[in-house]
């Protein structure tokens, strides 16, 4: 399966720039989600990749071929449209086979592919029906099937789920993800729904006004949005924002807003001068109701009046007003405050986002995902684990091996090698602070399996990261996490 690359793509309609300098590499087999609001240009990018629109300047490559000037039929792409775009006068079978018939494929091969796709998508009994006689979900599956039978180099999805109801959408989202992983076809998926983006994408591209705002793995974008737009767009419920200013607080800097005062520390404090406008962003799930013994009792807090409590079943959203702003905290169902009650919520020191007056993040820091998150995100199969001889590292190694990973374990005692033997992996005895030992581990892993997809650093205390640099070749679009 080939990769896709967009090189400085521009698209203008008259004086309006619809796409402004879009550059992106989609790796072979990767699922990249373009996400943005309406008018962000995400569908235009997809249509340019399909060949349905031509760029004003820039180029598009699929694999090694420059397809910028090629018509759609020569690009070997298949597309699933928002309104399915089935051929209304043809049966499901004819809908699926048209693309193959146009390519003069042998009858037997066409039948084989239709049987295969219909089996995967549960369309077997519908093949002789016309689209009019199908439900929305069935039409959607036919549209998917039509793309699948082509066995194209690249799949394109243009908001394929937006016409389905919520439960069907969730179901189809899982099916699309499963199928794409199974087929391993390079995929570009356009949606305005950030839940689809988060759950489906190997990587997400956030677009606004025709410009790329941020490209990254879903969890990275969630944890470290580069600007206020991305912060507000990715994550449900959306991030809370509090606008305020920086003041000099007797030698240290503090962020002050109506109803909030937060002492600034670290990098942020060094960068912002007193008097500057600053916006605090905090996710509803990163707030806790203040209590004397809470984990962040020492930390800053916000105080406001509860205006609305939404009970969602598993959790609840409590809306409260701080000054003139309405904020939200996501809570469990126990001990919910009542409307009009005063509420104090605490901020976790590590979970605050800062944005300057232009909306740029002041702390583009990276917070490593948890092991579970990394497991979900990584669908490749080779992991190396440092300090994996015992304790949490060994636990991680066992869980990864159970999940189908091949594991390489570095430990300072002989236990790592024993565990590796038990799990059918590679064991190296050495220190996670020694570049030499780590290099031995990496070399042994790459020699054996050719790639590294997940790096689990279980020596999370003390110096946080191992002294390790992976080359692009070793590091196969991998993930780093701490256990």
């Amino acid at each position, binding site marked *: 399966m080939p990769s896709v690359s967009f090189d400085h793509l521009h698209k203008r309609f008259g004086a309006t720039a619809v796409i402004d300098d879009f550059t992106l590499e989609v790796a072979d087999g990767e699922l990249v989600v373009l996400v943005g609001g309406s008018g962000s240009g995400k569908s235009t990018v997809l249509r340019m990749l399909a060949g349905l629109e031509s760029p004003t300047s820039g180029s598009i490559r699929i694999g090694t071929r420059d397809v910028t000037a090629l018509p759609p039929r020569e690009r070997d792409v*298949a597309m699933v*449209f928002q309104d399915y*775009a089935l051929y*209304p006068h043809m049966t499901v079978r004819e809908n699926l086979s*048209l693309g193959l018939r146009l*390519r003069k494929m042998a009858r037997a091969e066409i039948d084989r592919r239709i049987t295969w796709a219909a089996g995967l998508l549960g369309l077997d009994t519908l093949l002789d029906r016309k689209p009019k006689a199908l439900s929305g979900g069935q039409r959607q599956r036919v549209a998917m099937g*039509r793309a699948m039978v082509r066995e194209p180099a690249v799949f*394109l999805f243009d908001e394929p789920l937006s016409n389905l109801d919520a439960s069907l959408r969730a179901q189809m989202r899982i099916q699309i993800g499963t199928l794409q992983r199974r087929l391993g076809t390079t995929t570009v998926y356009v949606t305005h729904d950030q839940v689809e983006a988060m759950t489906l994408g190997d990587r997400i591209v956030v677009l606004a006004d025709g410009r790329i705002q941020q490209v990254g793995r879903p969890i990275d974008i969630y944890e470290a949005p580069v600007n206020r737009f991305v912060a507000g767009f990715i994550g449900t419920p959306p991030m809370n924002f509090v606008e305020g200013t920086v003041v000099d607080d007797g030698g240290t800097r503090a962020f002050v807003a109506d109803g909030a005062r937060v002492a600034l520390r670290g990098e942020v404090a060094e960068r912002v001068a007193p008097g500057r406008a600053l916006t605090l962003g905090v996710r509803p799930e990163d707030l806790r109701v203040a209590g004397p013994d809470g984990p962040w009792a020492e930390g800053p807090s916000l105080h406001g009046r509860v205006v609305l409590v939404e009970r969602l079943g598993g959790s609840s959203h409590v809306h409260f007003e701080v000054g003139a702003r309405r904020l939200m905290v996501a809570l469990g169902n126990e001990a919910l405050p009542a409307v009009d009650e005063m509420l104090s919520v605490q901020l976790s020191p590590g979970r605050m986002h800062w944005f300057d007056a232009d909306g740029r993040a002041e702390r583009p820091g990276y917070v490593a995902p948890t092991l579970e998150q990394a497991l979900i995100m990584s669908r490749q199969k080779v992991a190396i684990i440092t300090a994996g001889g015992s304790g949490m590292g060994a636990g991680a190694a066992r869980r990864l091996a159970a999940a189908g990973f091949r594991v390489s374990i570095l430990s300072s005692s002989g236990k790592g090698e024993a565990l590796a033997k038990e799990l059918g992996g590679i064991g190296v005895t050495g220190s996670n602070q020694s570049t030499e030992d780590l290099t031995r581990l990496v070399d042994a892993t790459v020699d054996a399996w050719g790639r590294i997809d997940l790096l689990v650093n279980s020596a999370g205390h003390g110096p946080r990261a191992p002294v390790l640099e992976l080359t692009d070749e070793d590091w196969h679009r991998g993930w780093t996490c701490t256990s």
Partner: protein
Amino acid sequence: MRPDRAGRRRAVAGYTAAILLASVMLIPFLWMLSTALMDEFEVFQYPPPLLPADPQWANFPNALTQLPFARFFLNSGILAVCMVLGQTLTGALGGYAFARFRFAGRGAVFAAYLGALMVPAIVLLIPRFLLIDALGGVDTIAGLVSTELVSVWGVFLLRQFFLSLPRETEDAARVDGASEWTIFWRIALPLARPALATVALFSFIDAWKSFLWPLVVTQSLEMRTVEVGIASFHGLYYANWPYQMAAAVTALIPVLVAFLASQRFFTRGIQLTGIR
């Protein structure tokens, strides 16, 4: 007033209006039928009788054999088939091009087309005749048919229809590997069937009832069409009304059959364009 009574009154008023309007349409037709069965001189009695005293069924065979009506029907049939095929095909091609292709001067050309709809056909009669005469087509089937193969109205109606088709379907075919011609032939055209049927039906009726052009462009008796044949019962000094009406009633039959067989397309045509 009770609501059901109001409803009944409204229904009565509605039906009365409908019956009045229907009568306006129906009475001339019934009179034509009645006249077709009258004696040659009964027609001129005063006051005119509503019904023939003694129905003259022989008027029908007599009228149709006095002039070569079999030949007239054949000529009208050829004209109708050519017009139906020509106008639907050119209408589909032209309409699709106007609806889907971007080319220099598209707007201006289309405006000129619409402008042609405003020109009364009678104004074009002499130029058309001169043209056909110069090409040596007077009194031939080719001359009769050739200027009728394109209908501006057909192009317009089909353009409107193609505009109403979702572009995504065509884009899907494009990504599926279809060329522009394949998209037209295998996707757009099958989807346009209702509109094509409407154009075909209207062309058929236009062909069947056309009078002035066949009258001008044909000269010999065996090149005449049905309508022109009917008119020739009407001489300079003498008119055989019963024969004329008998031939007219006969000429109505194909139109009636076509209409009854495809009523829904008439309605569709009106929905599509708001014309007629």
